[in-house]
């Protein structure tokens, strides 16, 4: 068995998520906030990436200010029309976040 999961599994998981009922799109963002994979159109992707990045930083900063040993694990933003779910990365500062519109 390979020490790390195969590419195929990751792709499969992404496909499954995308095919869930009600999911509009997935964006995967790297450390700097640049989207590396997306299922939405370019303009929306860039917009979302930029805006969400700042939000995540703020949220994480808030959580950690209260208790530095704590960390943000998941962030959901519910609005009237849809819900944005953000899963930030575990590493302290390198935000490889993936978030999607639902």
């Amino acid at each position: 068995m390979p020490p790390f999961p195969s590419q195929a599994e990751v792709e499969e998981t992404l496909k499954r998520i995308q095919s869930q009922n009600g999911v509009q799109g997935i964006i995967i963002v790297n450390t700097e906030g640049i989207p590396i994979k997306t299922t939405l159109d370019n303009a929306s992707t860039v917009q979302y990436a930029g805006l969400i990045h700042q939000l995540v930083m703020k949220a994480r900063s808030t959580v950690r200010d209260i208790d530095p040993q704590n960390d943000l694990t998941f962030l959901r933003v519910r609005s009237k029309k849809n819900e944005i779910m953000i899963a930030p990365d575990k590493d302290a500062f390198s935000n490889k976040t993936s978030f999607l519109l639902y």
Partner: protein
Amino acid sequence: MKKSSLVFNSSSRAMNTSVAGHQVSQSSRHKWNFAGSQTRRNSILVGGSNRKRNILDRNANQAPRKPVRVLDNDGNDVTPLPLYHAEPGDMPSKPGRFLDEIFSSSESDQLKSTSSFNMRSFGSFLGSSLPSSLSTTASMTKGTEDSVPKLDIPIIPPPPCGQRKRDNVKQHVTEEMLDDVVDVCLTETDTISLFDLPPLIFMSEDADDTKAIKERNLQYAELCKNRTGNDKYVERSMQTFSGAPKEKQIQTDKIVMVDEGTFATIWDIYDSFCDQNKNPESEKANNPETTVNTSKGHEKRGEKSSSTLSIGSTIGSLLEMETCSLNAESNPELIMLTESFQHSLLVMERSIVANLFQPKLAAYRQLPIIKDPDSTVKPETEEKSEEGEESSSSPTLERLWAFSCELTRGWNITCMVWNKENPDLLAVAYGDCDSTNQKPSLICCWSLKNPTWPERVFHCHSCVTSLDFSANNPSQLAVGMYDGTIAIYTVQSRNNIHCIANSSECSKRHLKPVWQVNWSKQEITLSGEDRVEALVAVSADGRITKWLLCSNGLECIDLMKLKKTKNSKKKAVESKKKTEHMGSALTPGLCMDFHPTDSSVYLVGTWEGLIQKCSVANCHNVLETYQNHFCPVNSIEWSPFSPDVFLSCSSDWTIQLWKQECLTPVLSFTSAQRAVYAVRWSPNWSTIFAAINGLQVEIWDLNLSILHPTIVHQAAPGVTVTSVLFSRGTDCVLVGDSEGQVTVYQLKNLSVGQGKQVTKAVNT
């Protein structure tokens, strides 16, 4: 000396009492009587004149002074005579400074007389020696001149009196006189020492030092004396050259200022502190990453310089950042393969699914179902509520959801089992038990949090017939297969090897299908450790074996051999005697169950329809034989609430309820004319059990009726129901069918009392 010191030319009305007294006492033994008052404020300048007094009055409020007459003991009038008599038309000296007064008056007095004033009398008090010449009356000058002894200062011959007159005339200066040219003669006064404190050398006892110092002092004094007029010393002046100034200009680039702000957040401080401790331990490879991260963090935190990098960063870190960013961009795939990304994906998937399944899961967990406030789907909810109202009266199974995915579609479910530690984890075995073809089968571990995709998928080479999770090691799953193999899988990690033990190498392994595997906690071992868990399997070859996990693999010990009875129709009441048929006449065992409290006793259901109660200790004899079924006993289970009661079901369409002591069944249940494949007690209620017979799921409630099942749920057409499982702590039941679906049903409207014992029901 005395006399000379006593000479005061003028009455010292203005003298300090102390001084006068002091001097007086110093200088003579005569006693003086003072008449009149003298205030401290009186200036030393003696002044008998009215003008002086006026000045003094201006300075301080004084009582008008009476003339003072000093008389010694002999009655001589030794009143100090006034030193100064102010002339009419004298310039008034400026009020204010004491010394100013002294000097001004002294200057004016200079003109007048050469009378001297005995300095010494004042010297010790004031430390000052006034200029020698003070004005006195002309009559007294002569006398005083002679009597003046030493003087500290040479007498400056006063300028001719004409000047004084001129001064006097100037007093009455008119405007015309202002235009006159006035000659002002400036002369240097003598060095006026205001204070002379002779050096007090603390003479230590050390003779060397003192002598040397004294000698040096003397030498120096000599030198000073000799300096004047000595050839060795010449006056010389120096001048430093100032170089010619030169202009020079310099130009620099404009220094650009940038404002930089940063937050010293609590977590930032904490992170830096942790990194400090971590960094010396971490490998080199990690270091550039961490530095990149932090410097990038700086950039992020700065925020004001969003497009430009902060000035504070060094060139080195800049380069690092660039290279790393390049790396990052070129390897988005790498990111996706990291574990943390996987985890993020997992969490994301579960969240979405939780969103979708929230009402169902809430119902499962017996939580209130929250209606989505933003849901736009209104008509559906209305329909559902209507349906709910209709079926609210009678007990029924309400379908919540089904565990299914493409992977498992079409498979036949053979076994389902909950994890002992994590009640959300379910292991399901899929496979076709076909004796002709050994088809590979599937084991899926599902989590309640994601009913759309299994957490783990294992492939087995043979059809899996039985599963059981271990209680001691909750991640271990025992698998019994159709070809007789027993394997232990670990479900812990997604990536590691799953099968940790396999019985295919064991010599005593089963060659026939293993129908059931059970983990069972045995008695406490001699070493007093935790209760050892043994894996016990019952197989179609008639053996009940106990398996142990050792370093080589699985080793087995025979616990019991199920022997065929001579005549299955005979009712063997006490079959403790051995049958004479020995050897290979073993009957397949189909199911087994360990006693819930006494783990050394277990029941085995056989192909012949016998139920044998056996003991772990005794491997030759059975304890009891319960005979009623005449077809293979498919399933057997002790009641979790009543320790003496157990249920058995068989292909002879019946379900029998037994009590341990009684060899005949207490109750018998028949509902449909089909073989009953499985029967399960409910872990939550003592009087409820479920049974499946291929086409329907029956829920029996012994409280309500012993003749008919309370709930009968038909399977979908074409689908056979193959396994059933209750879930602990909630009123749901899982049903597995031949389509690969595990459907979760909720028992609705089952009015059950929890504390009732089956025995009560039985007895009534």
